[in-house]
């Protein structure tokens, strides 16, 4: 073991940073955390399986196994009905990774270390959201590609198609905030995972994502017709395939805005109090 040298004159900044530096550091710290999270994601095969292979399996299963039994009335048939739903669900499920990663970092003391450092306070959450949004976007594009391979087509032009992907990503980001809050508030990987299943499964399956809501029993229709995932999926479907959009778009926007307003402060508070 070589001797450890004395702390030489510090090369890390020690004086109080100017406002300009604080702003610059908020950006560079967020990018550093983003980069770290993406590196971690690429190193863990299980994450790739979860975020890429699972949605692809859903596409194939619903297209070829359940699809034949489901009657829909949209141009292009069930595969066109299905794909906006799968993409919305993919975005929502991608946030499992957000909650689990934050719970792990909390448990291992990584968040304690970062909070004891002179880095921007916002960077851990911001970097997490940026990295997870990037990851989500990659997954969505892969799923769209697979959809095309099994017969899906955008029927409404290129710009609405792009807007559909954007909406799916914003929707995923909103769910990401909820996941970040639960991950930090619960702080235990397995509980976080279980909790995610308990609310994400019902809210995505009891929606218009996979089947027409008219095929559900009346009491279930009441829920499915009036919950945010249905609004978002219906908007995405209208963007992808054409058709009336306004009512669903407004309701989606209101819900997503509401989620941001409620859960962004909650997630920040959970981070500040973490541990």
């Amino acid at each position, binding site marked *: 073991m070589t001797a450890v040298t004395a*702390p030489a004159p*510090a090369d890390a*900044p020690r004086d109080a940073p100017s406002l300009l530096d604080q702003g610059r550091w908020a950006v*560079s710290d967020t990018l550093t955390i983003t980069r770290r999270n993406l590196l971690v994601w690429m190193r863990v095969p299980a994450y790739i399986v979860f975020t890429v292979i699972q949605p692809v399996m859903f596409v194939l299963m619903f297209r070829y196994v359940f699809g034949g039994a489901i009657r829909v009335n949209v141009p292009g048939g069930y595969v066109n009905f299905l794909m906006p739903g799968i993409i919305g669900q993919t975005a929502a499920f991608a946030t499992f990774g957000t909650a689990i990663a934050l719970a792990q970092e909390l448990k*291992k003391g990584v968040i304690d270390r970062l909070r004891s450092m*002179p880095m921007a306070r916002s960077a851990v959450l911001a970097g997490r959201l940026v990295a997870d949004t990037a990851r989500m976007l990659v997954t969505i594009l892969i799923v769209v590609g697979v959809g095309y391979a099994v017969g899906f087509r955008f029927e409404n032009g290129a710009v609405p198609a792009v807007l559909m992907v954007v909406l799916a990503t914003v929707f995923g980001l909103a769910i990401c905030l909820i996941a970040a809050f639960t991950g930090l508030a619960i702080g235990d990987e397995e509980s976080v995972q279980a909790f995610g299943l308990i609310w994400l499964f019902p809210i995505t399956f009891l929606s218009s994502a996979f089947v027409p809501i008219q095929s559900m029993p009346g009491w279930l229709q009441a829920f499915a017709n009036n919950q945010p995932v249905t609004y978002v999926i219906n908007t995405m479907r209208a963007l992808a395939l054409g058709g009336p959009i306004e009512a669903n778009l407004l309701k989606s926007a209101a819900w997503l805005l509401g989620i941001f307003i409620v859960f962004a402060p909650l997630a920040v508070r959970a981070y500040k109090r973490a541990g």
Partner: protein
Amino acid sequence: MTQIGTTPVGTGPAILVEGLTKSFGDVHALRGIDLSVPRGTVLGVLGPNGAGKTTAVRILTTLLRPDGGHALVEGRDVVREAAAVRRSIGLSGQSAAIQEELTGRENLEIIGRLYHLSWPQARSRAAELLEQFDVVDAADRSAKNYSGGMQRRLDLAASLVGRPQVLFLDEPTTGLDPRSRLGMWDIIRSLVAGGTTLLLTTQYLDEADELADEIVVIDHGLVIAAGTAEELKGRVGGDVLEFTVPDRSRLSDAAMAIAMVGEGEPHVDKETGVINVGVGGRGSEALIEAVRGLDGASVETRGLALRRPSLDDVFLALTGHAAEEEDQPDGRRRGRRKAKKDDAKAAS
């Protein structure tokens, strides 16, 4: 430069704590502790699980707000000037807070970037620390495959990236095997030789004895004793007579046989079969009496001897119970105390 109270920044102790309190619901983790750590010295904070050690470290490293009292690190208030405190400290907690999916080098480079070093600076600082902490060979392997000792070294290295003036190590050797533990001690000694102020918590009495200039003993959120290792040992007052009874069923007979020899009740460890008792200044006389008594009761013993008091004995004398046991890294057990699970949970 701002002035905080009467302590100008740049002079005075590196850590100053007065009347610090913190409760979690009904659990009073800290009930008013005072500490003062001069620059460049090592304070050992010694106490069992749940004593409040981790709570104190978390407050001093700005992770937790105290309920009452105040704490200054390098003259800065840990609540009101938390950002300034963070620029002068390093923290290595109880578990290795590293990103296991990344390599050792990547871990340190990222920490360097978060200390706002440039990329070249972050790279050279990482390389320097990997060398110093003997992680060079594994530097570019995923930290997941590191041994426990190596992960802890990497974690300690990460806490030094920002060249902290004050370093907090919360139970740095808990869970390490004996060899890694000795290696960690060497590293800590050389850090201290370099002038870093160190606050170290430990449940291991020999660790505090080995590394700390001053020791405070915490139990149930209060400082119950403070001083150098020698001063604390002096509290026990004299030698300790100790032996092992191989036949555990004879333990109480043995304790009875030497009941009159020592000053106070003999301490019996039912698990290990070790009995010890303080005998004050009358060492050899007590030894003879003990041999006679044990012989009279025909109890077989091993390793009957007089020894200088250890910090274990101090802890026992101060608190009436032994310091935390669990499985020591060297496989020995050192006394026992009913785990106060709620305390431990709240304080960790």
